[in-house]
């Protein structure tokens, strides 16, 4: 494995930062510049760049409303949308020759999963308070000593499986492309695997976002049970 890792053609050997730390900054900078250029001057008749940004935003919003429902989506949109774009761009970075997917580094995936983990429990404590802590104990109180460790293990296995799903898939696809490139022939041979990698990149970004959204909206109170802010009833209109 180490012999293979050293054969990854990394373009920036003069930068004394490992690629797993440098390429996320590059992605962030790229997205920042794109967003700055696209929203610098918002017009009613959009410029081409603004059009692209609006398309991306609207599709993401539709996707996140499907995950989290219309009530929570407004609150979860910034986090989930950012996560989707970041994971997608990170996964696709491995397709550029000379680059290495930041998500094929274990620590990056662990970091993103930990953000989801802490945010989930923060939302739960914030919204539910004592009820959120009490739901770990389970419903019949005398089964609590059995159910409490099970709930804790279940909660801890979520970031673990999120991390390893992303890491395993992306590292696997990177290693396959690398083996085909190094061992066979670096032209046209790894191409079918790269198409496969395009598909997996998108799918894994989607799965990561869906699971984060499901965990996060599971910690928030369920839809339609909000007594403090009920959905406003439209004012009575005159019957024709």
């Amino acid at each position, binding site marked *: *494995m180490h012999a293979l890792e050293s054969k990854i053609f990394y373009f920036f050997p003069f930068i004394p930062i490992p690629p797993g730390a440098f390429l996320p900054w590059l992605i962030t900078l790229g997205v920042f510049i794109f967003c700055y250029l696209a929203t610098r001057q918002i017009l009613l008749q959009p410029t081409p760049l603004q059009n692209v940004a609006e398309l991306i935003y609207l599709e993401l919003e539709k996707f996140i409303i499907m*995950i989290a429902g219309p009530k929570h989506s407004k609150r979860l949109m910034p986090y989930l949308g950012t996560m989707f774009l970041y994971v997608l761009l990170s996964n696709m970075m491995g397709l550029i020759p000379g680059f290495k997917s930041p998500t094929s580094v274990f620590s990056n995936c662990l970091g993103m999963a930990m953000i989801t983990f802490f945010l989930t429990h923060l939302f739960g404590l914030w919204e539910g308070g004592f009820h959120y802590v009490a739901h770990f104990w389970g419903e019949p109180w005398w089964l609590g000593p059995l159910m409490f460790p099970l709930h804790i293990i279940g909660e801890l296995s979520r970031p*673990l499986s999120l991390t*390893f*799903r992303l890491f*395993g898939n992306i590292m696997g696809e990177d290693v396959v492309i690398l083996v085909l490139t190094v061992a066979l022939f670096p032209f046209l041979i790894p191409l079918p695997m790269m198409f496969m990698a395009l598909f997996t990149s998108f799918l894994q970004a989607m*799965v990561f976002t*869906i*699971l984060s959204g*499901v965990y996060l909206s599971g910690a928030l109170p369920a839809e339609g049970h909000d007594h403090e802010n009920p959905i406003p009833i439209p004012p009575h209109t005159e019957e024709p």
Partner: protein
Amino acid sequence: MDPTTLVHSVEAFSAVLAILVGSAFCAIGQARVISNTMESMARQPEILGELRFTMIIGLAMIESLAIYCLLVSLILLLLKW
């Protein structure tokens, strides 16, 4: 045989066995999920989006079992006892 070599070969063998059995049964489970979802999609195309969304969540949940096997085999291969 040198005992260290024996331990290493047993480690490699069990790592391969873990990921082999895990991914094989995971594939069977995922195939069942996908075929049943396709059947329901053909029967009720009007809830296609909802079905696809639930299918992806279920596939991810099933896949996490194979991921635990990957974790076990990575620990066996990379950790020096």
